[in-house]
């Protein structure tokens, strides 16, 4: 990026109208991927000069234990519903989960899920990291996920969405090929980096369960309806990507999981959705762009 300038120069302006048509495998019109955030929040993390990890003095009992609900209870509830309706996960992983709760990570592996890095902990923020420090968390992520799952991570969602001016260049240099941190489009798009071959894949803040329940204060049924509307529109337009970013401690609560299952049932039954993983979407996009250029 252009550090310190008004335009960070992340990508070129490419209007939605007039783009080359993208068709997903099997002639599907919308690629749907589900992104469970499997996170670990530390109970007593060091304080970062730019962001407090918890609003209360430690221990923030509700903050910590609410998130712990994911790993004790609601991960399995959420994952079973996804599997039942044919939705694989592409996991945004606090990679220290591989040490704290390897049972949760192993469950994702068993279900055929893809893993990408969401930093070491969701309570360690990247702001102000030196290039060496940021290289250390990228190298840690690659090595930790490889040891735990056998997978080489391809993607990055910055820990707690905290960045440095170097993040995108560095992940591209290490061979990662998609970022989930840019929200400027409903399609896969190229990202400008010093080296490498990075694209942005639509993740979503707007239909993220955290936004649904804690920014927009939706009821469980309103959130399920939001997912269906988002899906219907993107399927109508075609060539699009829909991400459903989740946190088990939110969507896996007993009053939310039933309406959520109905939304998945609707999307799976519609017939226009390619239910897939982030890396597969990026591969299908690259293949079509290569074909169009031949």
């Amino acid at each position, binding site marked *: 990026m252009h550090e310190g300038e008004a335009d960070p120069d992340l990508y070129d302006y490419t209007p939605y109208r007039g783009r080359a048509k993208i068709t997903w495998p099997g002639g599907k019109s919308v690629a749907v991927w589900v992104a469970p955030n499997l996170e670990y929040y530390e109970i007593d993390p060091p304080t970062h000069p730019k962001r407090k990890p918890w609003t209360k003095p430690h221990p923030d009992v509700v903050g*910590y234990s609410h998130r712990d609900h994911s790993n004790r209870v609601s991960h399995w509830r959420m994952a079973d519903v996804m599997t039942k309706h044919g939705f694989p996960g592409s996991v945004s992983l606090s990679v220290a989960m591989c040490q704290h709760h390897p049972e949760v990570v192993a469950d994702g592996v068993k279900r055929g899920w893809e893993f990408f890095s969401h930093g*070491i902990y969701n309570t360690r923020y990247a702001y*102000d990291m030196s290039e060496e420090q940021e290289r250390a*968390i990228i190298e840690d992520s690659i090595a930790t996920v490889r040891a735990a799952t056998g997978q080489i991570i391809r993607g990055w969602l910055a820990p707690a969405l905290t960045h440095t001016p170097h993040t995108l260049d560095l992940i591209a240099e290490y061979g990662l090929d998609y970022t989930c941190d840019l929200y400027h489009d409903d399609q896969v798009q190229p990202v400008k980096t010093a080296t490498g071959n990075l694209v942005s894949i639509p993740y979503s803040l707007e239909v993220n369960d955290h936004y649904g329940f804690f920014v927009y204060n939706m*009821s469980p049924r309103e959130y399920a309806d939001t997912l269906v509307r988002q899906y219907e529109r993107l399927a109508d337009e075609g060539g699009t990507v829909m991400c459903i970013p989740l946190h088990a401690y939110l969507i896996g609560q007993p009053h939310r999981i039933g309406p959520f299952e109905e939304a998945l049932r609707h999307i799976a039954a519609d017939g226009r959705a390619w239910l897939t993983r982030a890396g597969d979407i990026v591969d299908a996009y690259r293949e079509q762009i290569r074909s169009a250029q031949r």
Partner: protein
Amino acid sequence: MTLDPSYIEYPKRRHGYDHEMYRWSAIHERKPVIWPGGKSVAIWACVSLEWFPIVPNDTPFRAPGHIQTAYPDYRHYTARDYGNRVGVYRLLDGFAKAGMKASFATNSAIAERYPELIADIVAAGHEVIAHSTDMNGTIATGVPVDEERALIARSLESLERATGTRPQGWLSIARSQSWDTPDLLREAGLRYCCDWVNDELPYRFNNGLINLPLNHELSDRQIITVQQQSADSYAQQMRDAFDWLAGEGAARVLPLHLTPYIMALPYRIGALEDLLTDLRSRPQAWFATGAEIVGAWEAQQ
């Protein structure tokens, strides 16, 4: 500016938790339990009885629902006290109609100020659990340990005097604890607390204290006051939660955390009464107090 090198060191990166208060376990890997009568969903109604001094205290923090305007804030003082005068009696009548017992998480100031109410709660067979002294009695790390110990003792002694029984359970204001709280609760002879919202069954802390999770996400405060949803939506969400848990089949707890000044308003109480009538008819439902749930769980460990 760069970060201290220790910012990317992780001394507690290990199997299980980064603390030693309780052990890691996933709910489905534990020895299964079953509620009395072969029921699977324990419905635990827990009512918060709160008295907000008109002079609020911000140390360590101001309680949710507390006084908001410049002194004297008659508006919030009285609107909260409405719950203790009127709303709670609607709840007591509703519980009687549904034939169920509840837990009342009670500020000891309520026992001192409104003994008639405590007598009515005890006479109906409900459980009283301790909920600090009054809504200025908040706890967080930073409160001197002797002050916290004294606050817990004052709450328990006063409630024991009013009810004739020492409370077995404790709910902190806003579920907020200090590092010392679990040990202080244990030292005060408490059997269980309700503050940690990470599970759908009771579990034991390493110091012997049991935690019975009172899920804040399912509370009337969260759904109606924070998320601004209707009483009908609240009731539907509780039905959806019950249906899901009953479908899972394994023993679970569905907490109904109720606040008289929120749920027991004339235009909301009907939705709760209908919900209780509905849940009462479900074959999987076991209506129980906190102590009954903890007891049934403990007997199967």
